[in-house]
């Protein structure tokens, strides 16, 4: 606690663990007059995967890097193969681009659905209240918002009975620790029942849909079909054992159509039904107002951002009248409040290419009550763009795409704003993040079938090349090389940088979405996106800080991704080649 806190009556709220996220996150916040007056975000786990990668074969870096995260399981694999391909100047065949788009697009849709129903919904939906619902009324609500077939009163009665069985048993399982009855839950019982039913439907759907990753990668989590230079998904129109053949195409199409149906009939209608009942949250949780998107999902040449579904660009200060270009040399990382040391002094932020990191824990000894937030307080670094903190993720992609005039994105956003009868400014909010994620899931679900059809057409026309062998043999490599790979992951802009020397990884670095969003303060004291978004948030009951969860969860935190180290030996990187 700070001196000022000790002298005043401010109370400190601690949420640790922040559950329903990936990884280990701690939030400390000051409460004064029922509102949050300051907040600190701390990542409390460190592994050092980039150190483990040093000296290994860059062709297999993706297998290791993929394990940075098992929730957004494919994103680090993609960024990794792209980084090595960039370093070794390998062009991947068009089929590999398409398969990667399908795999990562499917990841995005599935991840967003799981986030909404299983990681976020319980911040808005009171499970206990669902028991009081009239299933007949729930049925009529369901039928008024969606064409979904499972909408009869009997269906909802069955769900209610199942939940009642769990509650009556006195063993509430996953629901044992919820803030049920909290005054901030304001949905009518019938909508709560609808959402609980769809929580269960989504739980079943996510595992069925992600069979797509098993088809194209052998398993999920951690599909195993990437290669530096392409994919292992061999294509042949006449081979039963080919990974991609006409029978597999049909299965892929079926799965993609199912995803579109689920997003159209469950996810979008549920978001649009719940959002208007929480209108206060269209103006809360605004955050920084600075947005970054590397852009991704090419329809042709992955090196040409004009072919991207999600445009590359920057929007500063909520000014959607202009999109600024992304200049990679303006990216820096600060460790002023992170448990690392810089040789040139912790006050000076460094470009990732000159990064040096020595993990050094200097926080309180466990068990502890509070972090020393005036000093270092997180395993996350604080990335900055041109010295400014930035938000990344679905909202950043929708804001940048909207500002850039990308038609699909403008239409989707305008449609949602019309449905909510709200101006574009509501995007900069907790609910804005939720809506942006849903719209993005729909945009992506609409793309998937087209990509499978492209693949099918290539298969039918004998275009089956899936791998470029030109640089597979390390004997063909230069003595040293460096490169970077970027990807728009479900949670935002992801970059991997690799330096190769003597056929082995000399240095490896990942700068990931949640580091941008969840990072701590920098040397100037500028708050990160989470910290800023909590400012002025009202908290009705400090012992049950539901409101903090609402805004933090709206970012979809992924902390295992966010904690990384560049190089424990403190050696310098060469400057990565960037487009």
């Amino acid at each position, binding site marked *: 606690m700070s001196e000022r806190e000790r002298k005043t009556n401010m109370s400190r709220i601690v949420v640790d663990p922040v559950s329903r996220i990936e990884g280990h996150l701690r939030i400390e916040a000051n409460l004064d007059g029922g509102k949050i007056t300051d907040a600190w975000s701390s990542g409390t786990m460190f592994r050092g995967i980039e150190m*483990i990668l040093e000296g290994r074969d860059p062709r297999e870096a993706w297998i290791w890097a993929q394990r940075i995260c*098992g929730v957004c399981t494919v994103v680090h694999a993609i960024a990794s193969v792209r980084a090595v391909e960039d370093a070794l100047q390998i062009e991947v065949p068009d089929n590999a681009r398409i398969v990667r788009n399908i795999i990562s697009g499917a990841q995005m849709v599935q991840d967003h659905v799981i986030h909404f129903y299983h990681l976020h919904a*319980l911040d808005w939906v009171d499970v206990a209240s669902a028991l009081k619902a009239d299933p007949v009324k729930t049925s009529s609500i369901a039928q008024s918002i969606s064409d979904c077939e499972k909408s009869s009163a009997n269906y909802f009665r069955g769900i209610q009975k199942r939940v009642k069985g769990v509650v009556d048993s006195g063993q509430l399982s996953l629901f044992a620790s919820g803030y049920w009855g909290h005054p901030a839950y304001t949905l009518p019982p019938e909508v709560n029942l609808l959402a609980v039913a769809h929580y269960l439907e989504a739980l079943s759907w996510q595992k069925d849909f992600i*069979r797509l990753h098993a088809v194209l990668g052998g398993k999920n*989590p951690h599909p195993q079909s990437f290669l530096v230079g392409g994919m292992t998904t061999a294509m042949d129109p006449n081979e039963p054992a*080919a990974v991609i053949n006409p029978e597999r195409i049909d299965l892929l199409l079926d799965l993609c159509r199912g995803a579109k149906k689920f997003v159209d009939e469950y996810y979008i209608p549920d978001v649009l039904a719940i959002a208007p009942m929480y209108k206060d949250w269209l103006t809360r949780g605004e955050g920084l107002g600075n947005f970054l998107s590397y852009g991704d999902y090419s329809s042709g040449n992955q090196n040409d951002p004009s072919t991207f579904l999600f445009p590359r660009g920057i929007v500063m200060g909520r000014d959607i009248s202009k999109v600024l270009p992304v200049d990679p040399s303006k990216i820096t990382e600060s460790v002023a409040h992170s448990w690392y040391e810089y040789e040139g002094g912790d006050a000076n932020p460094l470009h990732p290419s000159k990064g040096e990191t020595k993990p050094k824990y200097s926080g309180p000894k466990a068990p502890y009550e509070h972090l020393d937030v005036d000093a270092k307080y997180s395993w996350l670094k604080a990335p900055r763009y041109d010295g400014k903190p930035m938000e990344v993720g679905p909202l950043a992609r929708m804001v940048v795409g909207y500002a850039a005039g990308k038609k699909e994105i403008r239409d989707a956003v305008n449609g949602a704003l019309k449905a909510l009868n709200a101006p574009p400014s509501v995007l900069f909010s907790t609910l804005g993040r939720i809506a942006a994620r849903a719209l993005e899931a729909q945009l992506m679900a609409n793309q998937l079938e087209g990509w499978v059809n492209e693949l099918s057409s290539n298969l039918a026309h004998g275009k089956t090349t899936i791998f470029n*062998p030109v640089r597979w043999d390390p004997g063909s490599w230069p003595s040293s090389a460096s490169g970077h790979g970027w990807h728009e992951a479900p949670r935002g802009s992801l970059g991997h940088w690799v330096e190769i020397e003597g056929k082995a990884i000399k240095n490896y670095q990942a700068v990931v979405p949640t580091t941008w969003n969840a990072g701590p303060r920098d040397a100037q004291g500028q708050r990160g996106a989470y910290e800023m978004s909590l400012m002025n948030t009202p908290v009705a009951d400090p012992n049950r800080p539901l409101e903090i969860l609402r805004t933090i969860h709206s970012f979809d935190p992924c902390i295992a991704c966010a904690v990384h180290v560049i190089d424990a030996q403190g050696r310098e990187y060469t400057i990565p080649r960037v487009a």
Partner: protein
Amino acid sequence: MLENNLESALKSRGFSRRQLVKFCSATLATLALPERYLAQTVAAVSKVRKPVLVWLQFQDCTGCSESMLRSSHPEVADVVLDLLSWEYHEVIMAGAGAAANHVLDRVVKEEKGKYIVVVEGAIPTGADGMYCTIGGRTALDIANQVCSNAAATIAVGACAFDGGLVRAKPNPTGALGVHEAVPGLKVINMAGCPHNPANTAAVLVHYLTFHDVPDLDQYNRPLFAYGRVIHDQCERRAHFDAGRFVTEWGDEAHRKGWCLYKMGCKGPEATFNCPIVQWNDHTSWPIRAGHGCIGCASPRFWDHMSPFYDRLPSVPGFGVEASAGMLGVGMVGAAIAGVTVHGLIRTIKPIPYPADVRTGEEN
């Protein structure tokens, strides 16, 4: 009478008897147990008072949690709501912060000696354990308390098994698997990156039914899942025996599904039931997807099985007998260990790992 009680207990949970029997049958199939155990299994999993489970996450990627959510037989919702009272699991539980910590404290106190704990992720011992804290406590402290008071500890995934990727050299955080970080525990190791949820669900059901764990190998991994060499179960095995190999990614041999041995496949040195159970509702597995096996269920696989694209130095001979013999010592040892620990869950002592596995950091 029992039947009636069972029916009504099930009905009150909105769970049909047909669903229950189907799920138990599937589980018996995974465990390779005869159908005559069905009635016993059904009765055990439909107890009115459900056993409590807590799932701890330490130095993890949450991939093993996600893998559990992909469980198709039984359905994930049936596992977490009906089979067990799944009370603590950070990635999916309702409560956070103090409310979550309170649940864990309550379970440890009120269910002492009765609950099951699943651990995901490695446990750091460097920097006094400060590389992983939850609620201001170190992972090591939490694991010591929660695992020591449990009826059984199940380590899921490579990281909880033996430190996994986090423990790969140079092991920057001093990471260890659960059985090493908390010595003396009865740990059932569900190795793999990630674990296969069909296997873990089967172990849970087996435990609920027989109050015991399936036969284990020398690494405390269930034999039904880890007792066979992948190479011997592989759908591409006929191509190996016939000398038909993929020699370049995407070549004709690759399109035809020939053997991946020359592309670095570790199937001949690895055990797992991956080829049989497969993944994601039996949809596929890595070799089917055209990539070699990386031996992810093997001890210290990150250091011992890599480089993943280098061909194994020698897989002698062709034919089932020869390759099984090649693995001779390890597998025979596994079978014997399995027999000796059967039925002795409460007296299991940690089985010493081979020196090269245990000494970690330097190799």
